[in-house]
């Protein structure tokens, strides 16, 4: 096994972890997993919990699939993947209901929708099926982190501009409101999440020319 010779955090493995944060970010570059995510970005707190849930589901299911990769016949692999993911999501959902009940109410159906989040299926198909458990774990954590970062950035701006708070704490001082500043109610509405993501993509691609699409 080459993994024994290779140090646990070799540069290649570090790349697996950090690549998804920028060059192959799941949301802005691979275009995966937008579905279930943006609706929970009105406030930072639920977005953070969502990002954490995705991270757990993704890391564990990546490892499980990677361990099973030699025993699962290719023909039924999709159903096996779905079962693994669904089982993990049920666990996460029950934990949230038990310990963070009010946030789990806010996330409502979106925890369940982690199952059909294409980023998880996508990484299982593209990576975990053909790589060792440790690498798959890093890949899962990296991609989920890249996903979570975008989620939290979007939530940060929407909460700051829309409600004047971050993580529920007031950050815009009262005196500014006295001057006539008002919270931008538009930021709380769903379409603004899309526009904020659009702007994030714009900024990222302006800085990173090789990501620019031809059409």
């Amino acid at each position, binding site marked *: 096994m080459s993994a024994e010779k290779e140090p646990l955090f070799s540069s290649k493995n570090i790349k697996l972890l950090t690549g998804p944060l920028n060059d192959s970010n799941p949301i802005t570059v691979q275009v995966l997993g937008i579905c279930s995510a943006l609706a929970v970005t009105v406030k930072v707190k639920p977005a953070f919990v969502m990002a954490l849930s995705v991270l757990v589901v993704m890391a564990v299911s990546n490892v499980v699939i990677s361990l099973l990769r030699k025993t699962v016949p290719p023909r039924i692999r999709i159903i096996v993947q779905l079962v693994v993911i*669904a089982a993990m999501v049920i666990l996460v959902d029950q934990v949230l209901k038990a310990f963070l009940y009010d946030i789990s109410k806010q996330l409502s159906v979106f925890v369940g929708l982690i199952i059909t989040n294409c980023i998880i299926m996508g990484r299982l198909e593209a990576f975990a099926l053909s790589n060792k458990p440790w690498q798959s774990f890093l890949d899962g954590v990296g991609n989920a982190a890249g996903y979570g970062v975008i989620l939290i950035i979007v939530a940060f701006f929407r909460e700051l501009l829309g409600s004047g708070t971050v993580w529920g704490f007031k950050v815009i001082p009262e005196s500014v409101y006295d001057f006539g500043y008002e919270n931008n109610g538009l930021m709380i509405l769903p379409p603004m*999440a899309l526009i904020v*993501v659009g702007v994030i993509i714009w900024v990222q691609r302006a800085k990173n020319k090789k990501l620019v699409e031809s059409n």
Partner: protein
Amino acid sequence: MENLVNIFVKSVFIDNMIFAYFLGMCSYLAVSKTVKTSTGLGIAVIFVLGFTVPVAYLIENYLLKEGALVWLSESFADVDLSFLSFIIFIALIASMVQLVEMVIEKFSPALYSSLGIFLPLIAVNCAILGGSLFMQERAYNNIAEATAFGLGSGVGWFLAIVGIAAIREKIRYSNVPDPLKGLGITFIITGLMGIAFMGFMGIKL
């Protein structure tokens, strides 16, 4: 009847799957390059949502909900299987997609060949699972309401994807800043369309 129309219109315009909940965004972004293919996918989604949501309603009310198993035996009155709903709905969707595919192939080969590969793709479309889960959360009163909701959501999704595809076909000829090309501008247009759809908010039939 009025109630049904109300639910239908509400799920088409106000609670639109794409603009209000971002469901099915993956295929929405990937397939919306031309109007023709997106029409195909949209119709397939209407079909599958229209079939899946009522069936999910039956499963929810006669199998999963607390006390839903009473029809089997009185002693099941406090059995609550709702934690199983994710896995059951996902299995249901996969099999419904298969079933709808076979039915369409049998009765309308022309439609089948025009839908092509889109039907199997739908199994992983979050709009379908999202529709079933919303149906569960909103607790509709009867199966007709659930069907109206399912069809309405499908039509809303169809409108959204055909609309964006038409705009993307045109925008190819305009001068978009380089970093915004492709994905970025699509996101922003979707956001603007969403704002337009917000105009329907507050409509009561």
